[in-house]
């Protein structure tokens, strides 16, 4: 392990040059007497190598180790959310086998304090899982059914109404948020006088700072009644109210990312367009906006991801009935709201619990793919375009 030279090789900024010079100048007076007599000696290649300093070495290692925490967190989220959702990924036979072993471990040691009640619960639950297994508790068929009734004599874990509910609310939110946010971003980047910018930006920051529970509360108390009076539909709380409320949470994200993309469009493009006689709005709509399309698209994708995982707003404003319908003014129950509403009441390790974790795993995967995709998309496309490759 040639750690010192390793470190020296890896330091790459020009700061390193100064540091090496400093180390070097510090080293010269203490150099052995023999070399002093030769007066100004020449630097041997080895002299430029950094001296090994244990404190510096460990500081770097510790800092690197701490920096890995965020990486580890992502990995742990993967592991633990999927671990709890794991039984569901097995076919019923394998699952019931796995479940016979599991309860003793989970209930006796981790969850229930006293051993006997732990055993009792474990038995009770394995009985329950047997009956559930007999009814096809978490078979793929059950999961793909259109009825979500987890607490009943014959539990139904149909995920379809929940997925549909999430999609419905999210799409409504995006349909409202995307045009408003993109137009506002275009306004700031192309037309707005300075004072207008200085009014809009803080407003957006304030909107972004609203806790989602506040937006949910506003939707529940004000928007729901207002829309019902306005449109006269049957249910006060429904996907539409939830979607509109959620658009409030999505607008700041879409606006910020889209505005960044629009401002990043090089000025020579706009200048060329203006020089050819195009008006300002023509330049904005036919040059700036198309040039920033990848960034604007990424903004919408990020907004979609945010809306899809949003919990408190939909929990408060959508009515939370797991209906399988496309009607936008009927109550819906989204995936995230289901987890939020039901997780506190389930028995640890139970089928219902597992299904809720499975929902969480789906949410995580979905937003992970969206975010990673959007990031790659911005980087690759936008950079490529502006470099003119």
């Amino acid at each position: 392990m040639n750690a010192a030279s390793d470190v020296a090789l890896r330091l790459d900024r020009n700061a390193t040059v100064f540091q090496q010079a400093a180390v070097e100048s510090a080293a010269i007076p203490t150099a052995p007497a023999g070399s002093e007599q030769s007066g100004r000696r020449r630097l041997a290649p080895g002299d430029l190598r950094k001296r090994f300093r244990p404190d510096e070495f460990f500081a770097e290692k510790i800092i690197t180790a701490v920096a890995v925490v965020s990486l580890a967190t992502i990995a742990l989220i993967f592991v633990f959310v999927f671990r709890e959702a794991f039984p569901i990924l097995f076919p019923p036979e394998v699952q019931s086998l796995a479940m016979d072993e599991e309860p003793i471990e989970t209930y006796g040691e981790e969850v229930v304090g006293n051993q006997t009640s732990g055993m009792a619960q474990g038995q009770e639950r394995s009985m329950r899982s047997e009956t559930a297994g007999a009814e096809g508790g978490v078979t793929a068929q059950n999961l793909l059914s259109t009825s979500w009734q987890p607490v009943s004599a014959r539990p139904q874990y149909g995920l379809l109404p929940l997925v549909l509910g999430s999609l419905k609310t999210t799409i409504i939110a995006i349909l409202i948020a995307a045009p408003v946010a993109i137009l506002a971003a275009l306004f700031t980047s192309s037309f707005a006088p300075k004072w207008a910018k200085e009014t809009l930006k803080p407003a957006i920051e304030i909107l972004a700072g609203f806790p989602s529970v506040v937006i949910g509360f506003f939707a529940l108390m004000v928007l729901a009644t207002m829309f019902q009076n306005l449109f006269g539909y049957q249910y006060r709380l429904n996907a539409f109210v939830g979607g509109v409320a959620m658009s409030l949470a999505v607008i700041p994200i879409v606006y910020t990312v889209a505005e960044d993309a629009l401002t990043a469009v090089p000025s020579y493009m706009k200048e060329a367009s203006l020089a050819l006689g195009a008006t300002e709005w023509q330049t904005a709509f036919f040059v700036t906006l198309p040039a920033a399309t990848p960034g604007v698209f990424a903004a919408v994708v990020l907004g979609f991801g945010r809306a899809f995982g949003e919990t408190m707003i939909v929990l408060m404003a959508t009515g939370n009935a797991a209906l399988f319908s496309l009607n936008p003014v009927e109550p819906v129950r989204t995936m995230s709201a289901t987890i939020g509403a039901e997780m506190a009441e389930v028995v640890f390790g139970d089928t219902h619990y597992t299904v809720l974790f499975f929902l969480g795993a789906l949410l995580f995967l979905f937003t992970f793919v969206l975010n990673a995709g959007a990031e790659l998309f911005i980087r690759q496309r936008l950079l490529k375009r502006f470099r003119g490759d």
Partner: protein
Amino acid sequence: MTFKRRIIGASVVGGTGLAAVGIVVLVLYIMATIVIGGWDVMSWEFITDSPTEGMTAGGIFPAIAGTALLVLIMSIAGVPVGTITAIYLSEYASPRSWLARLIRFAVNTLAGVPAIVFGLFGLGFFVQFVGGGIDNIVSGGTVMKWAQPNLLWASMTMALLTLPVVIVSVEEAIRTVPRELRAASLALGATKWQTIWHVVLPNSTTGILTGGVLAVSRGAGEVAPILFTGAAYFLPQLPGALSDQFMELGYHVYIMATQSTNVDATQGIQYATTLVLLLLTFCLNFSAIFLRARIRARKIG
């Protein structure tokens, strides 16, 4: 032709302006509604008293105290980790190293993970795995102390949720420390760590503060992660230990508005609680904006 074009132009520009005006009006409208709705109930007693009569009267002090404790413990856990990560990313890692890129990717991803998934993670990892593990070691699993939702696990979950916020703003601040300052320090013979400790960090305290404030603001507003990692419906006394549950402002708003026994009778309380929460996050965000403006001014000046 030109007249027609001018009309189109005006309406197009007007359309974008309308969207902008719409956003501003909406923000003002939401704030006005909540201020007006909560104004009558708002009083000093409301902030300093406990809820009484089955939460249909009295104040919200336990919820405010619970929120304060939550964000305090969260900051103690999260801000140092976030700061060190930012130091690693901006001072130690070469931008091309695979580890730095991977960490950066993880930070971005972490920022996009839904809050409710953090809640699930908190339950699966902190409550069951870590808490269960502690109980096993301490009492062999006979006493269930840590393997249930509590203040500590909720704070830790929230610390992970707010980690990206801290990292991003500290890193921004570190980058505004002029390169010449570092070079001067290194040229004087200071080592890399000495330079970071004595030159870079003192010059980025504002940024670390901004990161902390933004994280606190985010943490105070998020409810989904603590739904099942520690928040309690009603507790007469404040949490006395890390293993106690706690009341929280946002959670209080949620249950009062959706699950309380008499939603209509407590409307004033709900609005006032929302107002307190909004004021809290508003003040925090405002100070973060102010601090950030100072950092950016240095960058230019």
